[in-house]
């Protein structure tokens, strides 16, 4: 009986998150006379959350390992600008420009990870320093002015899949879910079927406007990869162990330093991807791009159930968290709320989410 209750409480936690999201959506729908729920707005909402989401899915793993990365916003700004400049000013091929952003992101992430792992500098300090350095470099390489790359670059941030392509993609996803649902037993099976239904509904909704936005597709693809890394690779499981109990991981023969370098490298790689999408979405590389996005990413992960103590969190939860944050921004813009209210409300929600979590944990003893 007790065990069953405890299992319910784990689901209860996910349910409160979904419930809170629904409440936010209902409030905004009523307040905007339904404008909030129009396909046009939901498509915009999905695009608005793309960059934060890419950063958040990486941040989950960083925090799960008991670390923090404050430099991802600045790193996304920097790598996005490098790609745009390489493409627009140096005339590099698009693929090479994108690769540049990814490689630079991964290398700088690896550097930060090495400082944390081998020199034992606290990650807060390493990445705070990294944030300042990257912001400075960004200002330097852009020369303080905005650069707009030509149209093909913007595809990654602004284009939509043709409706038919959207259906093909979702068909493949549903088939994959059905296939794995056959292989797993028990509780997970209805979850997968629900997910398949959700995917079909989402594509129908997006196609009702202009089609599935390319950045949304990128987010979902990355989230799938990251979730697989988290749950189905030794690397991912080791991160949970390191964040959950570093001593136990050490005594189990896990190479902690290597894993820390790995997770920061992965985070840097994702910051590179986020940077490209950011530049493409905004349509320009700006000298202060990405500022404060690290905080949005951390907030999304935490609202989505990631524990800052380490060892706990999921990639999909972080996406849900990013959706909560983006919904607040979007809804308040629709209502023409003065801009200063947005950070105030987001800050309140962040603290409230953790407060609810802590209260639940105390209840469990």
């Amino acid at each position, binding site marked *: 009986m007790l*065990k069953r209750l*405890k299992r319910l409480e784990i689901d209860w936690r996910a349910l409160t998150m979904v419930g809170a999201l629904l409440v936010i959506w209902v409030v905004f729908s009523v307040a905007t006379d339904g404008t909030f729920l129009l396909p046009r707005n939901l498509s915009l909402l999905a695009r608005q959350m793309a960059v934060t989401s890419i950063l958040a899915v990486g941040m989950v793993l960083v925090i799960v390992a008991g670390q923090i990365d404050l430099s991802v916003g600045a790193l996304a700004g920097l790598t996005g600008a490098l790609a745009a400049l390489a493409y627009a000013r140096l005339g590099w091929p698009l693929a090479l420009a994108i690769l540049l952003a990814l490689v630079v992101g991964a290398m700088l992430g690896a550097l930060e990870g090495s400082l944390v792992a081998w020199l034992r500098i606290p990650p807060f300090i390493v990445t705070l320093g990294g944030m300042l350095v990257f912001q400075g470099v960004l200002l330097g390489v852009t020369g303080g002015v905005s650069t707009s790359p030509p149209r093909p670059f913007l595809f990654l941030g602004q284009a939509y899949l043709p409706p038919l392509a959207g259906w093909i993609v979702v068909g493949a996803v549903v088939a994959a879910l059905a296939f794995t649902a056959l292989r797993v037993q028990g509780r997970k099976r209805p979850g997968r079927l629900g997910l398949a239904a959700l995917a079909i509904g989402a594509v129908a909704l997006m196609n009702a406007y202009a089609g599935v936005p390319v950045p949304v597709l990128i987010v979902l693809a990355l989230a799938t990869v990251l979730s*697989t890394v988290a749950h*189905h*690779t*030794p690397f991912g*499981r*080791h991160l*949970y*162990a390191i964040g*959950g*109990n570093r*001593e*136990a*991981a*050490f*005594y*189990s*023969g*896990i*190479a902690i330093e290597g894993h820390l370098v790995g997770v920061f490298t992965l985070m840097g790689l994702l910051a590179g991807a986020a940077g490209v999408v950011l530049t493409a979405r905004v349509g320009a590389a700006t000298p202060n791009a990405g500022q404060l996005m690290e905080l949005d990413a951390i907030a999304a992960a935490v609202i989505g159930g990631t524990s800052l103590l380490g*060892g*706990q969190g999921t990639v999909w939860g972080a996406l849900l968290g990013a959706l909560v944050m983006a919904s607040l921004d979007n809804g308040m813009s629709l209502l023409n709320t003065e801009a200063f209210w947005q950070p105030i409300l987001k800050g309140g929600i962040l603290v409230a989410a953790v407060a609810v979590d802590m209260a639940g944990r105390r209840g469990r003893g």
Partner: protein
Amino acid sequence: MPPLLDLRAITKDFPGVRALDGVSFDLEPGEIHALCGENGAGKSTLIKVLCGVYPSGSYGGEIRLGGETVHFRGLPGSEARGIALIAQELALVPGLSVAENLRLGREPRRFGLIRWAEVRDEARRALDRVGLAIPVETPVRELGIGQQQLVEIAKALMKNAAILVLDEPTAALPEADTRRLLGLLGDLRGRGVAMIYISHRLDEVFALADRITVLRDGRSVGTARREETTPERVISLMVGREISQAFPRPERQPGEILLSLRNWSVADPQNPGRRVVDGVTFDVRAGEVLGIAGLMGAGRTALLASLFGAARSPVQGTIQVGGGPPRRPFRDPREAIAAGLALVGEDRKRYGLFARGSVLDNMTLASLQGFRRRGLLDDRARRAAASGQSSALRLKAAGLDVPVGQLSGGNQQKVILGRWLLRRPRVLLLDEPTRGIDVGAKSEIYDLIGRLVAGGLGVVLVSSELPELLGLSHRVLVLNQGRPMGLFEGGAATPERVMSAATTATVGA
């Protein structure tokens, strides 16, 4: 005249265990009364009751101070009545100066500002009383453990303590500091301070105490004046219990040597120059359990951790695992695991489990690489291996996805054992494998050790429960302050001999 302090028929229960069962104990003014007993006999519980750590109402019996019944609800309460506890873990703030530590929380103030001159003057007088000649501005972090202990005593005396309770004060002290401390305690007695002195070291007890009380399994089994007893009698009181449990020690079929250790020494991380393990040499063969006996602080845990590459201080000596060549100590657990060692540590929560992780994740933590197929984990194989191990260990859990923190202690221990058995080690190092787990799970773990050894594994076992250690081990190595004090073969390892080797002084210097 009533005694200064009188504990009457103290009984204290923990879930499933009676830690104290009607213990009576008294203390005369200006007396040092030693409290002896094996690990787990109830000494620490008794003083926690006395000092109010376990508040009045949570135990049975009565505490009388100067003839008056008292009800303490916490350390401040007992301190206010002149009882000062010098605990094993010192309660000083490392970053603050000695003077600040002495008046911490009771700083003399004028207009809200601390009167530093008074703090320093008082500190100087207090340090004089314990014979510690250091500047009072010294940060505590810069003091050795012996000096920190003197600061603690000075702090107690500043609060006009009439009764000092010293819990294993010399356990971590180098020889010179020990002698200095014993001298100081003798002086304080001369000045009328009464003391309860808890120690494993019988030579110290017999050098210092006026009376000696022995606890065993939560009961007081005898009190005697020092002149009327002998170390041998105290030892036999400490161990004198019949071995009630059957231990499935398998017939020893000595096979090849699996682990051999030569001149193994481990430096003390706190006191450079001192060694927590000093010159240990042994072999463990396939099909054999080597027991390591010793009292708290004898170096048993440090020995196992250093074998496993997890020591926090320099290690010297050579080690040989399986048929490998002799080599220097392992640098980290990874090397040790690769060579075929596995360690089940004494503190499951700290070194073993990540509590929020599932049984599956915890059990397969050390062998995940082996379940990889094309880069991804083969979840079916992983689950199959974990559930096979669970049934072999008779693990009681509501499935493999339950957070391991929800299991009982015995089942948690089985998860950790399962983690290592999945790696198929050559030698299993077990540090207090049955601590804090119930009787049923204990005997299952004994059976398991028997099966593993019969299957050709070598086991090194550390246990503070002497009957368990003697019942399971084919040979017993006794450590005393890090030094090997004898290797007893099977029947020669009697409780009296082992305890005598573990408690007798090792140095004359």
